[in-house]
């Protein structure tokens, strides 16, 4: 059902968090009097992860990229939708299937000072996953993992504690821990954002070697588009819990379609004073994900707001005519001929019909 080399498929994933209330409020709620609010952190996200591919998840803070990443490794149970791994839907997977999935999905975190247990030596930290899945010849595997993470000679690091290591070294131990089970894919949540610039490239080259030498797939989560351009084969831009644009990195960055992606790229400062960049004045701030507006979530800030269709009809993320990337925006006519104007309720439909949907793409 999925492409031959697709490792993982995310199918309309949703994750909502109940706004936390005291026990009295939940008491009142069980009597049906109070209705709980939900934070719609991830609100219907679908994408595929192919083998040996690095997929970037980009967006401002609060857009749901980290929650999505954590749902991929089952740190969160999806509220709706599902994740398909090895042709099994994880929500229906048996315990042994879950245990096998756990061996093949690992994660690297942002803060090097918090991603290692301060009370555990490097050896214990890297060996722990092996012990959980009781895989034998632990010491040899730990050694190999540390060597791959360029912590040479590995034995010297065995008995060291995290507080004796630098930020870069800690992040390498975290990578070794993620690798030791020889997983199929790794979710990396802003792995280098807390490292000094001059040290980042060293850690990033590790992630590259993982995909090239291992055939490992990486989901790279970051707000730093220039870094993502360097690292990722494909890119997905998220806004308020949904993907607004997804496709090969070069297409998404070089000929951007969605107005939000365009604003995001224009806002990135360039480390070259001689080159100017076109400044798009985008007002306001990211919307509140508790009571979600109707239609397109970017409508309040969108420089190319068309009218009621943006206001009422949620633009689906789909193949658009004449581009390689999928875009969720009414500016473009969808390849499969879906016409958003039909869903328009009320009289306003007639007024908008006149305006042809193929108005010129907004970004030039």
């Amino acid at each position, binding site marked *: 059902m999925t492409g031959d080399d697709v490792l993982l498929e995310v199918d309309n994933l949703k994750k909502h968090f109940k*706004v936390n209330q*005291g026990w*009295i*409020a939940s008491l009142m709620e069980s009597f049906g009097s109070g209705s709980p609010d939900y934070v719609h952190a991830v609100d219907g996200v679908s994408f595929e992860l192919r083998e040996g591919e690095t997929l970037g998840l980009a967006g401002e803070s609060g857009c749901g990229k980290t929650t999505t990443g954590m749902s991929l490794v089952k740190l969160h149970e999806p509220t709706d939708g599902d994740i398909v791994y090895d042709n099994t839907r994880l929500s229906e997977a048996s315990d042994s299937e879950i245990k096998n999935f756990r061996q093949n999905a690992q994660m690297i975190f942002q803060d090097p000072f918090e991603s290692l247990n301060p009370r555990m030596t490097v050896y214990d930290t890297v060996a722990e996953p092996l012990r959980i899945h009781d895989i034998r010849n632990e010491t040899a595997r730990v050694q190999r993992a540390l060597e791959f993470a360029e912590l040479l000679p590995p034995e010297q690091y065995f008995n060291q504690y995290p507080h004796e290591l630098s930020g870069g070294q800690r992040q390498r131990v975290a990578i070794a821990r993620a690798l030791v089970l020889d997983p199929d894919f790794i979710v990396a949540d802003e792995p280098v954002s807390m490292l000094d610039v001059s040290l980042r490239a060293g850690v990033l080259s590790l992630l590259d070697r993982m995909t090239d030498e291992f055939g490992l797939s990486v989901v790279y989560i970051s707000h730093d588009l220039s870094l993502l351009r360097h690292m990722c084969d494909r890119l997905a831009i998220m806004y308020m819990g949904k993907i607004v644009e997804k496709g090969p990195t070069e297409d998404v960055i070089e000929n951007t379609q969605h107005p939000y992606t365009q604003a995001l790229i224009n806002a990135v400062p360039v480390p070259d004073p001689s080159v100017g960049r076109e400044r798009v004045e985008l007002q306001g701030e990211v919307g509140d994900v508790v009571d979600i507006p109707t239609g397109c979530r970017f409508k309040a800030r969108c420089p190319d707001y068309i009218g009621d269709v943006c206001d009422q009809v949620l633009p689906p993320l789909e193949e658009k005519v004449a581009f390689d990337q999928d875009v969720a925006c009414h500016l473009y006519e969808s390849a499969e001929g879906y016409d958003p104007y039909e869903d328009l309720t009320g009289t306003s439909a007639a007024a908008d019909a006149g305006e042809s949907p193929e108005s010129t793409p907004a970004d030039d």
Partner: protein
Amino acid sequence: MGKASFVVRRTLQLVVTLWAVGTVLFALFRLMPGDPTSYVVSSQMTQEARQQLIASYGLNDPLHIQYIRFLENLVVLNFGQSFHSNQPVTEVIATYLPNTLVLMLTAFIVAYAIGITLGVLSGWYRGSRFERSTVITALTARSVPTFYVGLIVLWIFGARLGVIPMSGMTSLGTGGSNAGFFDMVFSMDFVHHLLAPAVVLGFYYMGYPLLIMRSSMLEVLSEDFIDVCRAKGLKERTIMFKHAARNALLPIITAAAIALGYAVGGSVLIETVFAWPGIGREMVRAVLRRDFPVAQGTFIVLASTIIFLNFVADLAYGYLDPRVTYD
């Protein structure tokens, strides 16, 4: 959700906690090993007097009936009669509770005023000799048993120097029953009696707020906005009190609520040492005399005072910290 619903929710919680304390007490006296009635009757009574008394207390009724009656009495504050003096327990409470409140609250307020100020200063002048000495005094205040300090104070100032009265709340013959409670409280003689126990109790209470305030000050002083205040060119004193102390005050409120649990214990001991006619001392005497209704009644009053003061502390916290949004 607003303050109103917080108050409602918190009162609900207050009632539930009170009910829980009452139930535990009910269970304590009835489900304990041995014959529960042994607490109710005193040994010299004849057999039938004993049965008659037990019947009058309905102790042979099924448990749940007793429980319902117990709760009804609780609500209407009727704790039955004292064996010892046949006085209704509520009367006993009415006479002794105010004395405890006067002693405890004076000591509490004095202790918190001194404790907080010393806490602010020792937090600000960190590493100085002043800070080290205040911390040591605070620790000693919490380490040496309060009744022992009372004994020593009584011995030195009472027995040896005769500066303070050895016991009681008023000298004999002055506190006539007609004198109203309030004019008694403000009479010099009462203050003279109050001085020693209040000071000893205050010394015991002072340690806790001082240490909490100091660590809370240290926490606040590492915040960025203190640097910004310095950059704004404010005087050191303004930063210390207006910004640092004001923020450091917040944890003190919750700490005060917890400290109340210990405060009552302290006042029970001090009342015993200084023979101060407070409800704590009354409870101890009732327990020793196996005067079960008075013991039960005084205990419930003490516990509900604590729970109520906790409730007040929670509300006060809301006013002091704008970030609390009661959701």
